[in-house]
């Protein structure tokens, strides 16, 4: 087995000794078959949530923000919590597609497509909140620096909210381009197998891709360029989101640790959401050969790392609050941990810092059940983190006379459920119209990471298969 293109310590990333044709069959299949019953049920549920969300959003617009339970002290609650949560979730996609591409991490190919799609859908959900949480959403165009007859009157370039607008719109645009670029050759594959209207549609979507060498070369270049642009975005977007808080004067917000802490948290939650989605997807679409335990384990390592970074940030915050000698800061952190919202803080601490420590054990990293449970814990924990930062901090700030308390109304909860509905509806549609795993990229790594090419693994895993492994030795 010497001379194998895959390092003996690496696990294969494509199992089942797939041929190129099988890969095409496996990955294009879901777009060509009638949807399964499970898909239909999931879709109906998602659409129901989506409808609930739309109803709640319309209600909010119709009635005013007073249909939420925010108050004179707590100006942001579930709205911005959800916004930051969704933005954070988006980060895994970009990290996988951009940074892991630059670092030549081959295991990204199994999950990048879905993760990027998830990024786009999550950013869409996130972008909803800044739009609807304002008092007069019909004038949100004031945010944009467009030439006008009011002076001209420009937006306030000092405001982190404006930075947010640019950061998120750039992020969304780049993510969309990156995702779509990756989809072009796969759409061409789908097109080539399709007939009639579908063929025309995919022809349009694939921009007349013919698979010529020139196409591939340009495609590779564009991917790299976009990866180059997207890489700083992984760091900058959540940094800027954290500026919403860090540049304020509110104790508990005014913290220089926020940018790295937010970025780590974002990647942490993003990978958790990727895990949640991929564990279901690989099962439902029968993609275990493409999204292997190796992928899952890799992502769990990232979760362990970023979760621990986040945990260190939590502890650093506490230390700095104590060390600062600044009573407002000390109280803010004391209040987070032991004040009336202590349960949110402990939810955050346990879900984000303590529970992910199980991933030090390989057994648990490779356990589907543990991984799925963990991904849910992390998603909950990261939601709590944002809630703790936003609502708990605002509830008790400088003047005790103005301290308050906040519980969401049904409308606020409904909008959050609605964004889950939007997210899953879009994701489910995505699984039906595009290959969930990047066909071209899988084929690209097949000969380096396919199990039939990996030393020793083929025998270990695929002994009973009828497939004859040719091309064993180069």
């Amino acid at each position, binding site marked *: 087995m010497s001379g194998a293109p895959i390092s003996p310590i690496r696990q294969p990333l494509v199992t089942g000794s797939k041929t190129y044709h099988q890969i095409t069959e496996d990955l294009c299949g879901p777009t060509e078959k009638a949807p399964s019953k499970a898909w239909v049920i999931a879709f109906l549920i998602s659409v129901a949530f989506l409808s609930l969300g739309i109803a709640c959003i319309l209600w909010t617009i*119709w*009635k*005013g*923000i*007073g*249909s939420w*339970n*925010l*108050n*004179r*002290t707590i*100006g*942001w609650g579930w709205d911005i919590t959800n916004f930051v949560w969704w933005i954070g979730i988006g980060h895994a996609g970009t990290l996988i597609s951009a940074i892991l591409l630059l670092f030549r991490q081959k295991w990204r190919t199994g999950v990048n497509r879905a993760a990027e799609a998830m990024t786009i859908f999550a950013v869409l959900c996130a972008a909803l909140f*800044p739009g609807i*949480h*304002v*008092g*007069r*959403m019909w*004038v*949100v165009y*004031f*945010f944009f620096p467009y030439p006008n007859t009011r002076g001209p*009157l*420009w*937006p*306030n370039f*000092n*405001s*982190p*909210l*404006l930075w947010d*607008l640019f950061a998120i719109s750039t992020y969304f645009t780049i993510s969309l381009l990156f995702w779509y670029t990756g989809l072009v050759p796969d759409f061409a594959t789908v097109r080539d197998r399709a007939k009639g209207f579908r063929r025309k549609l995919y022809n349009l979507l694939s921009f007349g891709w013919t698979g010529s060498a020139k196409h591939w070369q340009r495609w590779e270049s564009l991917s790299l360029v976009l990866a180059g642009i997207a890489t700083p975005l992984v760091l900058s977007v959540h940094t800027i989101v954290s500026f*919403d808080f860090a*540049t*304020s*004067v*509110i104790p508990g917000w005014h913290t220089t640790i926020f940018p790295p802490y937010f970025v780590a948290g974002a990647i942490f939650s993003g990978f958790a959401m990727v895990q949640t989605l991929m564990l279901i997807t690989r099962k439902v679409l029968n993609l275990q050969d493409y999204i292997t335990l190796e992928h899952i384990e890799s992502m769990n390592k990232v979760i362990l790392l970023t979760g621990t970074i986040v945990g260190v940030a939590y502890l650093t915050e506490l230390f700095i609050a104590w060390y600062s000698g600044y*009573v*407002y800061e*000390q*109280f803010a952190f*004391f*209040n987070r*941990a*032991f*004040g*009336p919202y*202590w349960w949110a803080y402990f939810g955050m601490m346990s879900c984000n810092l303590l529970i992910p420590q199980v991933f030090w054990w390989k057994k648990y990293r490779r356990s589907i059940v543990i991984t799925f449970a963990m991904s849910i814990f992390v998603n909950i924990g990261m939601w709590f983190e944002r809630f703790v930062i936003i609502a708990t901090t*605002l509830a*008790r*700030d*400088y*003047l*005790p*006379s*103005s*301290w*308050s*308390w906040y519980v969401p109304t049904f409308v606020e909860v409904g909008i959050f459920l609605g964004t889950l509905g939007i997210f899953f509806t879009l994701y489910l549609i995505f699984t039906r119209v595009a290959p969930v795993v990047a066909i071209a990229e899988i084929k690209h790594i097949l000969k380096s990471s396919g199990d039939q090419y990996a030393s020793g693994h083929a025998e270990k895993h695929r002994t009973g298969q009828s497939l004859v492994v040719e091309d064993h030795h180069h």
Partner: protein
Amino acid sequence: MKNHKEEEIWIGGKDLGSDPEFLKTAGNEFTDTPLYETMGEATESESYKTDRRDFLKYLGFGLGAATVASCDIPVKKALPYVVKPDTIVPGIPNYYASSYVNGGDFCSVLVKTREGRPIKIEGNSLSSVSMGGTSARAQAYVLSLYDTNRFKGPIARDGEKGFAASTWDAIDAAVKSNLNGNSRIAIISNSILSPTTKKAIARFKSSFPNTKHVSYDPVSSSAMLLANEATFGSKVIPDYRFDKANVIVSFGADFLGTWISPIEYARQYAKNRVIKDVDNASMSKHVQIENGMSLTGSNADNRILVKPSQQGAAIAALCNLLGGSGSGPSLPKEIMDSLRVLADELKGARGKALVVSNSNNVSEQILVNKINDVLGSYGNTISFAHPSMQRQGIDSDMNDLIADMNAGRIDAVMVYGANPAYDFPGSSFADAFAKVDFKLSFAQSNDETTALCDYVAPDHHGLESWGDAEPKLGHCHLIQPTINPLFNTRQAQTSLLTWAGEKLDYYDYLKSNWTQNILGGGSWDKALHDGFHNSGASYSAGAFSANVGNALSNVSKPNSSDLEINFYETVHMGNGQFANNPWLMEMPDPVTRTSWGNILHVPVKFNGVRKFIGFNDLEDGDTVTLTVNGVAQTAVVVQQFGQMPGTVSLSLGYGREVGGKSAVGYGTNVNPWLTTDANGLTQYYATDVAVSGKTGEDDDFASVQYHHTMGVKDVNTAGEEVVADELATGTLVKGFEGSLTNRSIIRRTHIADVKEFVHHLHEERHHFEHLNEQTLYPYDEYKEDLYDQGHHWGMHVDLNACIGCGACTVACIAENNVPIVGKHEVHRHHEMTWLRIDRYFYGDADNPNTVYQPMMCQHCDNAPCENVCPVNATNHSSEGLNQMAYNRCVGTRYCANNCPYKVRRFNWLDYTTADLWPSNEPELTKSDELPFGADNLTRMVLNPDVTVRSRGVIEKCSFCTQRIQSGKLVAKKEGRRLEDRDVRTACQTACPTGAITFGDTNNKKGQLSKKLRSPLNYVVLEEVNTRSSVNYSAKLINKIEKLDA
């Protein structure tokens, strides 16, 4: 040409003929026969029938037209004057001197009118009684003019169906037919301050000789009147001078909030509480003896807690300690110890002491007079020269009247400005009233008494009337109309005079009375311009003489009951007279910080670990069954610091059953629980009280402040003294000490320590300054360029002068069109007040001291709100103002989050109906009615100089920018430098104690600059480097430490 005359004009050939069909219809200009029938043979034709297609066409057109038409935004047209009245210049306000009178409540005011509409009340600084001060009630007076519940004209009972509209002629005829010279008539009123009204009543009496006038006060001071009659031979309330007293002792009298003449007293009191010279700091000592925390008690240096039933004994004990002879009922040792210390203090302040009491027991008031006599107060701090007329009612007169009514000895009752069916103690009035044949009310809007009457002859509102008031003997004030009557009402005095047979305009009647009896040769015009005339009338009382021994034995006896309750009047609601006024309903009680209803105050106790436990484990907003004298009602609870253990308190004035939408259904009516003593005088406490455990929760518990303390001390379970509230900030574990007290929000000290305090304060401020200099953008550099030239607006608030009365908060609402949001919204912390008065307790947890801190936008020069707004909707003016451009505001609320002072307010719903979507309106009142202040009548009160904010935008204090602008224009037109008097904010002018000073910090000669030099000044949260433009001066107390030992 037959049947036709040549000169007649003819239109067509048919005119010339004589077709009978034609002649029949020729005279009808408008025919009522359908068009198609007049079209001859087509009558039955199919072409005029509507077929399906036509129907669809019409339907389509109709729907389309209706849709297009309804897309239009309704346009409200403002028409200019055709002939402009001389005195009205659009955009320029006119001010008229007048008076606010409500029963015994008095305030001399200037009424600001714009385009003929009264929109704001200002204090009249010329007046020798209110001296420019106002109260929350006076500020809210202008809203009551536009009360939607006012009667639109006279009404009369119409069988069982209730009232039906009537006419003045019908009312006059009814009076004539029902009353004659022999009729036994009673006129019921509250204290009447008006000499001319009294004259009119006397004139009425001359026509109806069997008339008697009975006056009572909703919160009675009868015992004082009777005690003064007994001791000085004069049934009056003397003139108190709190400014001349160095030691003030009050047995339950809320003289800063509600007692007799609070505006006047507050001004006097503050004079002696404000520190003028820190090096030789001096201030009066104020000891309040009470069980619940009253507004006055919260301002006191010391409070001695006695149960309501012990108050008489405490007065007796103090009297004895000061050299009275005799013995009173015994008291617990700790109270006696306190009283001994107090007696020593008083003895040391002979001639400069003042003792007052709200007791409605004649013997107790006699003893108070005795105490004052012993202390040499008469002639020094108390004078009879210009006695107060503000309380004249004797409760027992009403009891006599009720007996007369029950016995059928009264034929007719006229109720003028009173609501005895609600506010007269007990429930005996209504039954007796029902036995009277002819019942007439002069009420302006419906209330419990009016609802029982047969006729309503609605009086003008005070702002529509001529009138006068003599709150203190010789100090005569005028009332002049500032608007034509809005409705078909008639002044009550005119009604009385008309029925008496006089055909006089009340203005003439008033003027002739003044010319003859008051002006004494003085100018009517000057009196009208100034709003008052001091006639110089004075009074001299006899020397003190009383049977002290008898009084000592007749004081009320301490009760051994475990739980007692006292009923008190709040600064805003009185005894319910103001319940129709949403400004006052929504104004939080200064002490409890709750609004929209009265709340049962229960004592609170530190459990020694980390929690404050309410009486019976009750928490804020719990409902309980409160049983007093065997009668149970539901009440909502608040844990009240400073409430004496073994007592609870509940305020008067709520639980109205008949009234406007802001009156009915809020709170508990305590009046049926009130009892009278042996002399028939109302007692505002009860000893037979039971409070159940929690029975539920008030879903709309409206409190604007949930955290009440700033460092209250108590002992823990180990017996060590700890800062209890700091420990209680933790939910899961104990909080840490210093978490509240180390905040730079409230600065306070004892006057004895003021020098060290100033030293420490300056050190700390220096440290903050050092911290704030650690920046890339040093403030001093840009300040010089930006703010040292031209105007730079600033404010100074003297915490020692602020008594928390809330006049400024209502003035701010009136001036700035601040919306009223209703109980449910206040419950959700959606109140919109631009100016609030934060209240913190500190010191001993069981008997704390209080500090009030008016908190408004600090107009920071380094404002955190400004740099976070994404659209520049809030920005800084070159004059140091933090401005809001409502039109630009998108409503992200980022500014509100980032405001350390939490003064920014968001329009959560469409509180003003300034919006196109009306759907969110009913939520506010839980009914189909409009939000408060959104109807066209109430909107007349809006200040046209201030934008009405729509839903979804942030708003906040603007330092009354409209006043700054108009002040600048005045100075510019007169070609001079702007002076202090040109610009005064609404809160500043409303304040009875002068706690708020506004001005230009660059005007070094101005009043503000002078105040800014006080070494007691500090800036709230200075270390946050917001560069606030508001300075506060520290709160000092003159606590008698021995009293707490």
